[in-house]
């Protein structure tokens, strides 16, 4: 029997601002993204009756956004935070709300402004305000921000399974090939293994090019019922299935948190709702804060056995012309970093068939969101066809 949420809701609007060194504040970028999404959907502002808000590392967008937007008659309004899993979560809650009549058109918006003039690129992510003596131990040891923890996770995968630096390079290089076909991508110049190896180390095994970009920008997505979406300007992208899985405490040794992530519980639930199998998936948009995250997620999603992710990606199957097109806009590594909105925005473009030169088979698009250090996970299964 079809799950009641399978194809009950659809994404009908997408707004993406300029990305990168856009020195504007996050709230204004959020507002612009919302207006762009409303225009994209062919709606009027007064049609929108729900607003879900998520802020990035600068944490500079919250409930007052509705005042900035002049939205005074909303039926749904909240701020949400699940780190990199938030964007996928917002769409899930929006889908359940529209399907149950709480609201008709819910805008889900994310914006961030970590880049400030005169500051180092990663400054906002290194973390400020470590006031306690205990918290101050971490930078002494070199543990500032999430990056080192992902580097250690990647190294464990290398030690346990023989995953190589070239496997990580394959992710970075393959996604750069996609980015070359995406006019909105920040980094479009060609990248080869020599270029990857020449990229400076940050925390080995990660070069700079194993790490996502840092971007200012905003992305908004509008969710409505499948019925309403059919009558709008854009081709609907149906939400066929979705799920979440969360957990892991990095301070306890009872879980192999670097290797076995909540993605393994999330994807099967999302596919079950979609009444689909992994083999039905025609493309992936995988949260790629680091190259290793893609390998860990593909393994946990079941595309290959645990530990075989390196050889799995080594034949270029994720890149243009490959068997499993993945991160077709260049991903967070090469296009822009809007946390979980990066994979979702590209999935919407692909789901509509608007990918142009980079359009891949879009029958079933699996989208991941990943937050913390592989702690928090959301999965969406999207399709241009309703079940």
């Amino acid at each position, binding site marked *: 029997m079809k799950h009641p949420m399978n194809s009950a809701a659809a994404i009908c609007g997408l707004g993406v601002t300029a990305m990168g060194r856009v020195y504007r504040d996050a709230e204004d970028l959020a507002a612009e993204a919302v207006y762009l999404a409303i225009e994209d959907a062919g709606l009027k502002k007064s049609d929108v009756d729900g607003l879900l808000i998520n802020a990035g590392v600068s944490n500079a967008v919250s409930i007052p956004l509705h005042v900035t937007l002049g939205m005074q008659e909303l039926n749904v309004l909240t701020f949400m935070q699940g780190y990199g899993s938030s964007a996928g979560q917002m769409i899930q809650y929006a889908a359940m709300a529209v399907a149950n009549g709480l609201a008709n058109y819910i805008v889900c918006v994310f914006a961030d402004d970590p880049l400030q003039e005169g500051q180092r690129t990663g400054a906002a992510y*290194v973390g400020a305000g470590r*006031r*306690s*003596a*205990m918290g*101050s*131990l*971490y*930078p*002494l*040891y*070199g*543990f*500032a921000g999430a990056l*080192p923890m992902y*580097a*250690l*996770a*990647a*190294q*464990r995968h290398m*030690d*346990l399974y023989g995953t190589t630096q070239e496997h990580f390079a394959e992710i970075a290089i393959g996604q750069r090939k996609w980015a070359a076909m995406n006019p909105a991508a920040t980094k479009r110049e060609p990248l080869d293994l020599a270029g990857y190896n020449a990229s*400076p*180390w*940050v*925390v*080995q*095994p*990660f070069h700079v090019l194993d790490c996502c970009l840092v971007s200012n920008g905003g992305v908004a997505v509008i969710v409505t019922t499948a019925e309403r979406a059919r009558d709008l300007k854009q081709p609907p992208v149906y939400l066929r299935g979705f799920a979440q899985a969360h957990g892991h*405490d*990095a*301070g*306890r*040794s*009872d879980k192999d948190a*670097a290797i076995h992530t909540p993605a393994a519980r999330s994807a099967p639930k999302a596919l079950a709702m979609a009444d689909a199998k992994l083999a039905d998936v025609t493309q992936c948009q995988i949260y790629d804060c680091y190259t290793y995250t893609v390998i860990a997620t593909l393994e946990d999603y079941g595309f290959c056995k645990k530990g075989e992710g390196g050889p799995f990606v080594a034949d270029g199957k994720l890149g243009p012309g490959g068997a499993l097109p993945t991160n077709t806009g260049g991903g967070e590594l090469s296009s822009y970093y809007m946390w979980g909105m990066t994979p979702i925005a590209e999935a919407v473009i692909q789901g509509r068939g608007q990918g142009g030169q980079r359009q891949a088979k879009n029958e079933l698009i699996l989208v991941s969101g990943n937050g913390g250090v592989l702690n928090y996970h959301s999965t969406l299964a999207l399709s241009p066809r309703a079940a």
Partner: protein
Amino acid sequence: MPEARPWLPEPDSSNRPYFEGAQHGKLRLQQCSDCKDWMFPVRKRCQTCGSTHLQWADACGRGTVYSHALLRREYHPRHAGRLPLVMAQVDLDEGVRVNSNLVDVDPAKVEVGMKVVVTFEHSPTGEAIAVFKPA
């Protein structure tokens, strides 16, 4: 030479036992008096049974490398002249996973599963910092 500055702010009541332990060459963790579970960093309530009866106790100081990496960019006075600094997550025998550094080891020989033991390094102002060396 500029005067050496402390690496850490003053401990507070919540974490003072940890730093006093370090000064005496002991790695201290909180332990639940009820379910005996160990935890780190500082908690007010046992993560396992919810008890508020937590006390600081000496850990045995032995553990296993869960993973490791090499710091290649310095951004703290302690890193100066020490790159690549070996970073590690160590699974203590008590069931707690801590972030630290490995010392007295060839960075190329570090691997997952290596047995390590705690040792203490002192800052220019005398603060004791827990690090690990091969057992």
